[in-house]
């Protein structure tokens, strides 16, 4: 824009100057024309004076002046003719003047010739006829008209020159102002560009600092390698991870200071498999099987590496990021150790289980036989020699039999309990109402006949049918047993689905239980009553709990002394 403005203004100034020159030269031509016309009239007046003189004194002294005056006239008209090229009106004037001048010369020549011939009278007469005067007047009128016209033109030209001059000065002034403005604008623009560049550089520095802080702030080490494998850059975290003091070491010394080894073996890591080398070969890769040996012990690291390409797509650099995975490796080792420990414990537990099995087998075999002998032989004594024994002797033998039978039941109960804990569950969809019906057949029909049974509908549940039947048997036997003292024993059997499990309950109106001891009910050999009151081994409810827990359910009991008891258990619907 500045250039266009400058060129435009320059062209305007140049044209203005050209016009001024043209105006000035036109003005000069006019002046010269007026002078020439004045000269012409002067010559004619001189010729007139010389003619009159010659008429008065015809001795020839005026003849020379006369001729000389006329001789000048063609020169003047020639001048005017030349100027007519610039001033066309002169051409018309000259055309008008030419015959008049010729006629005037002819009359004056005649007067001069008459005077020379001594005929002064005829000459004067010719003059008196006023022919030349009339011609002269017409010439003068033409010339003066032309001069007036020229002078007017000259005045106009003067004004034009003036105007042109002023315009030129104006144009030049505008040109100067424009040039100054352009210069100022250019300066401004340059200044602005400089400011912008300064700002951009500051922003770039700020951004660089930001990036530097980001790169230094990330919790991984970052190193950049050039194509020759030389270290080009490392962030602040890198030397920390590599085990240095935190000072960034001389990059050239990195390969000497930090040696990469195989994490597993501690042997030098194959150079061609180093992540940086693979990245320089164009591969984006990851490795966690290496460790870095700084002056200290090897630090296990996980490394990610990727190539950095130039604009032509060639690998220019390799960037590697690496993290200290000591904690992870340690955790993995701990987990491995824990797993090993766990495996060992499981093996121990399995061994213990086997021992327990062996133990329960030998209990089964070895304890039952002596107890059987005690009961059997006591019975033999009673059968074979009972009559010979006093009453007290028979009673004592009966106590031996009773207690040995109880011992036998305890042993059998313990064995059942241990079997429930060990035998594999065989769950299937169990029809609980059928299970209850079957369980009732396990009970003493005489006891059962005294009881009013109130059976509600029972939802089914997935369970081991044999074991769940045992649960019902034990709970029903319990309810029957403890409701015996009631005047009208009544047992309520209920079941419902509650959320993701089935809940079953057996309530009786028997002796009830003390809630304070309800938690102890399910322990092995825990009894809340003396054997004289209610017989039992203290194993039935423990077995119930064991079975239900193995199915993932829970058991509970509630009640009050003398107000009956309610036992409940749950079974998850999703096995």
């Amino acid at each position: 824009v500045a250039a266009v403005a400058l060129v435009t203004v320059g062209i305007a100034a140049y044209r203005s100057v050209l016009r001024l020159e043209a105006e000035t030269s036109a003005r000069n031509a006019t002046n010269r024309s007026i002078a020439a016309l004045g000269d012409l009239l002067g010559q004619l007046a001189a010729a007139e004076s010389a003619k009159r003189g010659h008429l008065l004194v015809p001795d020839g002294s005026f003849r020379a002046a006369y001729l000389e005056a006329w001789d000048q006239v063609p020169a003047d008209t020639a001048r005017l003719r030349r100027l007519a090229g610039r001033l066309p009106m002169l051409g018309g004037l000259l055309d008008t003047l030419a015959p008049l001048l010729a006629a005037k010369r002819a009359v004056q020549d005649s007067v001069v010739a008459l005077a020379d011939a001594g005929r002064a009278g005829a000459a004067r007469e010719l003059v008196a006829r006023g022919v030349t005067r009339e011609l002269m007047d017409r010439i003068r009128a033409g010339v003066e008209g032309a001069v007036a016209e020229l002078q007017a033109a000259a005045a106009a030209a003067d004004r034009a020159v003036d105007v042109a001059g002023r315009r030129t000065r104006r144009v030049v002034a505008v040109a100067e102002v424009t040039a100054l403005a352009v210069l100022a604008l250019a300066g401004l623009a340059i200044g602005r560009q400089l400011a912008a560049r300064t700002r951009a550089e500051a922003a770039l520095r700020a951004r660089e600092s930001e990036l530097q802080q980001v790169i230094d702030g990330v919790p991984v080490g970052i190193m950049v390698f050039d194509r020759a494998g030389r270290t080009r850059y490392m962030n602040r975290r890198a030397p920390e991870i590599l085990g240095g003091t935190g000072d960034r070491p001389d990059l050239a010394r990195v390969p000497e200071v930090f040696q990469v080894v195989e994490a597993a073996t501690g042997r030098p890591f194959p150079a061609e498999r180093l992540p940086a080398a693979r990245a320089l070969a164009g591969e984006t890769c990851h490795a966690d099987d290496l460790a870095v040996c700084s002056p200290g012990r090897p630090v296990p690291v996980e490394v990610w590496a990727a190539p950095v390409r130039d604009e032509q797509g060639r690998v220019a650099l390799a960037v590697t990021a690496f993290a200290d995975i000591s904690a992870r490796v340690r955790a993995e080792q701990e987990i491995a150790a824990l797993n090993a420990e766990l495996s060992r414990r499981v093996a121990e537990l399995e061994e213990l289980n086997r021992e327990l099995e062996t133990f329960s087998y030998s209990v089964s075999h070895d304890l039952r036989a002596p107890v059987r002998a005690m009961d059997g032989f006591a019975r033999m004594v009673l059968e074979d020699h009972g009559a010979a024994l006093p009453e007290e002797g028979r009673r004592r033998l009966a106590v031996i039999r009773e207690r040995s039978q109880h011992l036998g039941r305890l042993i059998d109960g313990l064995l059942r309990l241990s079997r429930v804990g060990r035998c594999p569950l065989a769950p299937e969809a169990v029809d609980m109402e059928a299970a209850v019906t079957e369980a009732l057949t396990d009970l003493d029909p005489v006891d059962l006949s005294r009881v009013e049974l109130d059976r509600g509908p029972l939802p089914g549940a997935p369970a081991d049918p044999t074991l769940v039947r045992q649960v019902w048997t034990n709970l029903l036997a319990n309810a029957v047993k403890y409701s015996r003292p009631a005047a009208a024993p009544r047992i309520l059997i209920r079941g419902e689905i509650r959320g993701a499990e089935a809940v079953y309950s057996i309530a009786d109106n028997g002796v009830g239980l003390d809630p304070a001891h309800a938690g102890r009910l399910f322990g092995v050999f825990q009894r809340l009553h003396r054997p004289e009151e209610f017989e039992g081994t203290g194993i039935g409810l423990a077995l119930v709990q064991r079975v239900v827990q193995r199915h993932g359910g829970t058991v509970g009991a509630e009640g009050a002394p003398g107000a009956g008891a309610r036992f409940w258990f749950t079974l998850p619907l999703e096995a």
Partner: protein
Amino acid sequence: MQTPTRILLVEDDAADEELTVRALREQRLAGGLTVARDGEEAMRHLEAGPVPRVVFLDLKLPKLDGAAVLQRIRAAERTRHVPVVILTSSREEPDIERCYRLGANSYLVKPVDAEGFQRAVTEAGLYWMMRNHAPGSP
């Protein structure tokens, strides 16, 4: 005429033996009863003596255990069809399964109480001696 061996009782526990014999005797089943006190003795009787009508076999025996005896009984041509009643203290499932797999005809867990024991032995004796028709029996 000599009473042929009709019942072979293999039992190492003297008390159990006495209780068993008494129970069988009460039912008049003890005639021709032979008692072996370990597995090898049982095999000697089975291989050399007459073939019994029924074998009452304890599992836990010295020298040769009950399962091995059962296996040999079933392996030998002359004793292949002899009914074998396992009479043991073991309620262990694996034992029960194993015995039936080896060809036991019955598996009785000796009750601890005297009446129960007597009933079990009596019923088994009566069943196998009286009710059951073995091949070749009259």
